[in-house]
């Protein structure tokens, strides 16, 4: 069968409507009105560009499993969206996703991870990356981390335990800074 060619990407440009980013879109832990099961986390970071300047108005979309490691959990909507502020900062509140098997019923596991897609002015195509949690034993054997041969590049996918004044007191905070280009660029995955 002849395959169709996928429609080409183009940048969002600088004018992505504020109305599309709704209240609750950055709160996966309780955005649906119910408190999600699992260990609540405040995930935040600063996004900078290749010149190390704060990258403002970058849209960040995330997708993750529930605490039970399910992508089809009826009690958890694992998608979120936010954008960076004037200092390039973003934040989400969510629960730490559970590990999930590489193949159903198999004994190899993906470590807890949050998939991220970055969009914005100047991004002709999205940038894809993945946030991993610090101190997870499964990080050592996670297939995505292991596929990244450079240890330095692999390490850049692991968030740091951090404190943040805006984080609710009952939540752990992890910091995941992103750099969109240049020599200090974050580890991005093929689109």
């Amino acid at each position, binding site marked *: 069968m002849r395959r169709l060619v996928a429609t080409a990407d183009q*940048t*969002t440009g600088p004018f992505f409507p504020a109305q*599309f980013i709704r209240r609750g879109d950055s709160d996966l832990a309780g955005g649906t009105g119910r408190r999600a099961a699992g260990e609540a986390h405040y995930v935040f970071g600063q996004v900078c560009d290749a010149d190390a300047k704060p990258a403002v108005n970058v849209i960040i979309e995330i997708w993750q*499993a529930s605490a039970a490691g399910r992508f089809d959990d009826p009690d958890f909507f694992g998608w979120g969206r936010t954008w960076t502020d004037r200092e390039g900062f973003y934040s989400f509140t969510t629960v730490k996703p559970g590990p999930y098997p590489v193949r159903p019923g198999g004994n190899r596991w993906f470590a807890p991870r949050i998939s991220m*897609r970055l969009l914005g002015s*100047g991004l002709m195509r999205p940038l894809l990356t993945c946030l991993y949690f610090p101190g997870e034993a499964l990080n050592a054997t996670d297939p995505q981390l292991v596929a990244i041969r450079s240890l330095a590049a692999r390490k850049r996918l692991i968030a740091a335990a951090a404190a943040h004044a805006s984080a609710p007191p009952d939540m752990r905070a992890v910091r995941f800074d992103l750099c969109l280009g240049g020599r200090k660029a974050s580890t991005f995955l093929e689109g």
Partner: protein
Amino acid sequence: MKKIRKKPKKKTSVENDRTQPRRRIAGYPNTFKRAGGARFWPRVISLADTTGPVFAAGSVAADEADLSRIAPGAPRALGQLITVSGRVLDESGRPVSGCLMELWHANAAGKYIHHNDPSPVPADPNFRGHGRILTDRAGRFRFRTIKPGGYAVPDHEPGARAGWWRPPHLHFSLFGADFGARLITQMFFPGEPLNGLDLILNSIPDQAARDRLVLRFVPLKGSNSQQGDAPLDYTQDFVLRGRRETPFEGR
């Protein structure tokens, strides 16, 4: 004994796919600051890519597909009334139903409803500027809006192309069936002289791929059923990336 070494096959990667835009565009400085690093790492496809958010049928109101007025019955925005319709398909040609599509664009004079648009071009209080729809069971959608104007891009930044104008265009965001199928793109209008000069449209090397970002004009039907304020119709289909290969088994 001498070993014969086969020349390694050049990897075909999405990163050098000629049907996709270049990440860096001369004359558009922000692309050099935000294009990622020197290399991209292989992405291991997992359930995280082959699943995605499901937006409930009731989460989008019917009037959100009409950008030509801010509410049903409100006065219509200035400009040429148009409809934009088509289908959302996967790479096998199967319709993608329940696909959340987001649309936004400039008003008829070329001004966005956005705090980041500094241009002195007049705003239109009757223009909604953004809309959403969920595709039906056959993957179809139909938006009603006005044709946007082109606009001059600020070119004061070093490295910016002097005198660059954006052609009239529509911004689309599609969620598809899974996180890996997400598409953000722009659609252009046929016959616009600015199309051939646009840095963003022409960042796609392949001509046929560029042509698929140009709407087709639907021939007039002979009688103006909505006399006095009939829309002109445009159409184009979207093709989302299909599901990737089955999940990777460890090395």
